[in-house]
Every structure is written in structure tokens, then in C-alpha cells.
């Protein structure tokens, strides 16, 4: 036994290490490939459709020609509405969970609820929004109803990223601040929140980004099949990019492929820009962080 334990391995350790590293490199590359492929493919196919008229024009000829302005503006409004609903609520809830909530059965229940909220299929949110906001509260199919639905869907992401961002701030800062005569709230407001703001913003943007690309929650709550004008109030229905893509890909016969890819490219650009902003914020914060 003894001699066996110390016998030389079949492959020398340095070689094992090199092999291991290469294996991991290849696997990492495999995860990156599909993303790059999708983006490149969409750009190549969609770019020819992108021109001024396409971005600022209204759909014509049963959406087979013209532009997609109402869908772009609609998605913008919906994202904004989602932010208005989800950011104040989500950040407050995150602050409460991280800074105030005692560890007891009640807060554990809340935490479980938040986790489960994140796991609910988006179509269920859509039906919930239809039942509560559209019908029961009488908002009708509207930007308001859709924003509320998307907002509720986005809440868990914002709550948990806020909570995490706050918990990442060293506890010693809180003790020091309180020892200097600050209250808990002053400590949170002046020390903890500024330090965790980049993390919170990243979570907010990633959550909104998901909301911007969702179809199911807005399907029953606020989106119109074809509405060639811009919404003028939160109670108006609207067009939106994800649903528009669904419509022109499956519901309209004789649809020019170029317009389909062009629309997808616009949505992708919208979402990726948000992602890029989140990345930039994170990097700048990391460079400036003192702990």
C-alpha cells in the first residue's frame, strides 16, 4: 500500500495542470460562442433593414413596410414604467432586508417568497396582471397595467441584488459610523448606500433589461397587435418590440424577412446597451472602491 501511494502518477502533475487549464479554456469558449454567434447573425441579417425611416417611421401596409417607431417608443415607456414601479419598492425592500429585518421566521418567510417570486413563469405574471390590474382594478390594457405587471416580475431581482450589494459593504463601517453618533438611518444613507449604489444600479439595470425583452407579461395587459400611433397617456395601450417581433414572425403572412431581423436587432441593441451601461458602472465602481 505504502509504495503505491507514493508511486508516480501516470500523467505528471505539471502536464495534468496544463491539460486541465486547456480543458477549462475550451469549455469557457464554448459558453461564449453561442452568444457571439447569435449577436453576429442578427447584426448581419438585420443591419440592412436599419435606416432612418425604419427607426422613426410608422408601420405601413399591414406592418410589411415602414418603420417600427411605435414599438420602440412603447418598449421605452414600458421599461420606464417598470422602473418607476420596481426601483423604489425593490430598493426599499432590499434595504429593509439587509439592514433592519431581524432574523426570524417572518423575515425568512419573506425571503422564501422573494426567491419563489423569481421562479414564477412570466406568463403567470401576465395572467395575474390581467386579472388584477386590467380587470379588477380597471386599468384596461394599458401601459400602466403592463408596467405594474413587469414591475412585480422585476422586484425579486432588484430586492436580492440590493440586499447583496448592501451586505457587501463591510460591517465595520456601520459600527464606526454609529460610534460617531450617527443613527442607523444616517449610516445607511451616508455611508452604506453610496458604497453599494453601483451594485444596486447593476441589479436594477439587469432587471429592467429582462423586463424590456419580456413578451408574456405584456401580452394580456397592455400591448396592441397593431397601433400605428404613439401612446399619449399611461392608460393607453402600446406596441412593444418583443411582442411586435412575435407578431411579425408568426401572425403576418408575406412579411419581409429583413424587417423581422431589423426589429430583432433593435431590441437586441436596446438590451445590450443597458447591459453595457451596467458593466461600465460596475467597472468604474470597482476601480474606485476603497475596501
Amino acid at each position, binding site marked *: 500500500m505504502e509504495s503505491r501511494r507514493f508511486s508516480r502518477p501516470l500523467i505528471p502533475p505539471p502536464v495534468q495542470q496544463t491539460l486541465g487549464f486547456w480543458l477549462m479554456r475550451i469549455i469557457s469558449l464554448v459558453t461564449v460562442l453561442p452568444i457571439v454567434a447569435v449577436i453576429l447573425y442578427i447584426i448581419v441579417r438585420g443591419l440592412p433593414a436599419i435606416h432612418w425611416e425604419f427607426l422613426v417611421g410608422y408601420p405601413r401596409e399591414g406592418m410589411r413596410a415602414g418603420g417600427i417607431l411605435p414599438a420602440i417608443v412603447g418598449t421605452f415607456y414600458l421599461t420606464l414604467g417598470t422602473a418607476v414601479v420596481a426601483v423604489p419598492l425593490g430598493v426599499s425592500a432590499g434595504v429593509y432586508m439587509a439592514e433592519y429585518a431581524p432574523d426570524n421566521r417572518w423575515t425568512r418567510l419573506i425571503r422564501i417568497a422573494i426567491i419563489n417570486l423569481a421562479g414564477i413563469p412570466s406568463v403567470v405574471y401576465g395572467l395575474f396582471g390581467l386579472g388584477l390590474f386590467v380587470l379588477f382594478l380597471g386599468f384596461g390594457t394599458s401601459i400602466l397595467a403592463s408596467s405594474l405587471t413587469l414591475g412585480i416580475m422585476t422586484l425579486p431581482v432588484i430586492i436580492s441584488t440590493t440586499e447583496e450589494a448592501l451586505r457587501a459593504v463591510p460591517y*465595520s463601517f456601520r459600527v464606526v*459610523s454609529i460610534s*460617531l*453618533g*450617527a*443613527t442607523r438611518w444616517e449610516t445607511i444613507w*451616508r455611508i452604506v448606500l*453610496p458604497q453599494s449604489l453601483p451594485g444596486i444600479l447593476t441589479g436594477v439595470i439587469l432587471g429592467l433589461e429582462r423586463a424590456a425583452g419580456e413578451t408574456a407579461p405584456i401580452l394580456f395587459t397592455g400591448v396592441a397587435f397593431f397601433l400605428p400611433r404613439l401612446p399619449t397617456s399611461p392608460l393607453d395601450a402600446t406596441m412593444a418590440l418583443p411582442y411586435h417581433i412575435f407578431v411579425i414572425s408568426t401572425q403576418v403572412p408575406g412579411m419581409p424577412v429583413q424587417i423581422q431581423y431589423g426589429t430583432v436587432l433593435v431590441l437586441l441593441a436596446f438590451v445590450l446597451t443597458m447591459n453595457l451601461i451596467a458593466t461600465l458602472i460596475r467597472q468604474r465602481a470597482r476601480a474606485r472602491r*476603497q*475596501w
Partner: protein
Amino acid sequence: MQPAQDVKIRIEHLQVRYSDGYESLRDVSLDIPANQVNVLFGPAGGGKSTLLRVLNRLNDLSDVAAMSGRVIFNGQNILDPNIDVVELRRKIGIVFSRPVPLPLTIYQNVSYPLEIAGERRKSRLDEAVERALRQAVLWDEVYDRLHDPATAISGGQQQRLCLARTLVLEPEVIMLDEPTSALDPVSTAKIEALLQELSERYTIVLVPHNVQQAARMADFAAFFLQGELIEAAPGKELFVNPKDKRTQDYVTGRFG
């Protein structure tokens, strides 16, 4: 022996138990004299840090299960749940063993407690920040980079910054929990000299990080062992002429 001195803080039968059942302080009674360096020393786990955290109610943050006795400061019982803890913490400041600069600039670290206290006037803040930094003998080293991040200075400087931050409120008592344990000997000497100087105007409560420092610094010393106050005496009495065998064993290095 000196004549009876002013008592700054009177501790009567203080008992502290944490929620895990651990008894951190057992029936401690102690008068802390004013305007001198008062040393609380003893091996780890003796309850010294707990005592400091009781004195400015920082243990409100930790899971203390039961506390009894009285701690009288300026005629008030500190343990009274109805006292103004913010006011108390402004009068009894604390410096921790590791320098923890807040994630702000050097200037803001010192002005922070004043701003929290409601001071908005720039001239007042400037003045107070300079005074506190001078008192902590840090001004000459940082006056030209007050708006740099506080982490840009060395550990020893950071600890003096933390002291300046406490001084800016002009407290009555300054407590220091092993303030030099993370510092090199030169920085340690600076802090010690500084404390001696400050003790003319402030009541210093120092938990030293070893017996040598305790002996060097003490105008008054109290020896803690496993949550009990074994003995207390003015001057270097405890180090020269301890009455209790356990104190003697500890100061002569037989344990600890």
C-alpha cells in the same frame, strides 16, 4: 497615593450576558477617574472590550441577552434604555483596534461626525477638522492632501485619523480598544505619546495590547480576568505591587 480624584464614570455591579449564555462581565464595580490614562488590561476574553462597548452603548448592536447594574456618567445611568444614545456616543468616543477609515476623503472622515451632528457651515468645519488633525498630530502629514481617499495614508496615519475623528466632537471620554495592535513600533510610540498629552484634557480609557504597554501608560490600572475585575489601583501600583496572586502571575508573565 494621590488624593481622591474626580470620578468620570462609576460602574456599579455591572453584569453582562450574551444571548449564547456567555457571561462577559460578572459583577464589576469600578470608578474610572477623570483626566488621566486609565488602563483596562488582562488576557483575551476578560471582558474589557465588552465593557468599552457598554460604556457608549455600542453593544446595542450585538446580541446582549441580559445586563444589570448601573453605569453612572454625568449623573445619568448609561444603561437606561431611555437615554439619548447619540448624545452619549458623542461624549464617549471610541477608537478600534484596526483603523477603519470610512470610505470618504481624509477631510470628510473628520468632518463626518460634525456633519451628522448638524454642522453645515464650511468655515466651522474647516476649523474643526484642522484642530482635530493637529491634536492627533496628523495635520503636518496630510494638510496638502485632505481630499484624497483616507485609505491612501499609512496604517499608523489612519489610526491617528480615527483618533482625530473622535476628537473632533470634543468628547469627554476617549476609549481605545487595543489601538496599536495593528501598528509598527514607531506609530505605536506616536499614539502613546499623543494619549499621554490628551489625557490632560480628556479622560482616556485604554485597553492596551500587552502588559508592557499597560505598565507604560497607566495612571490608573484595572486587571480583568474572565469577566471579573480582579483588582484596580492608581499609578503603576498593579505592576509593582499587585495584591492578588493572579494579577502578579499575569504581570510577571506567568500566563496570558
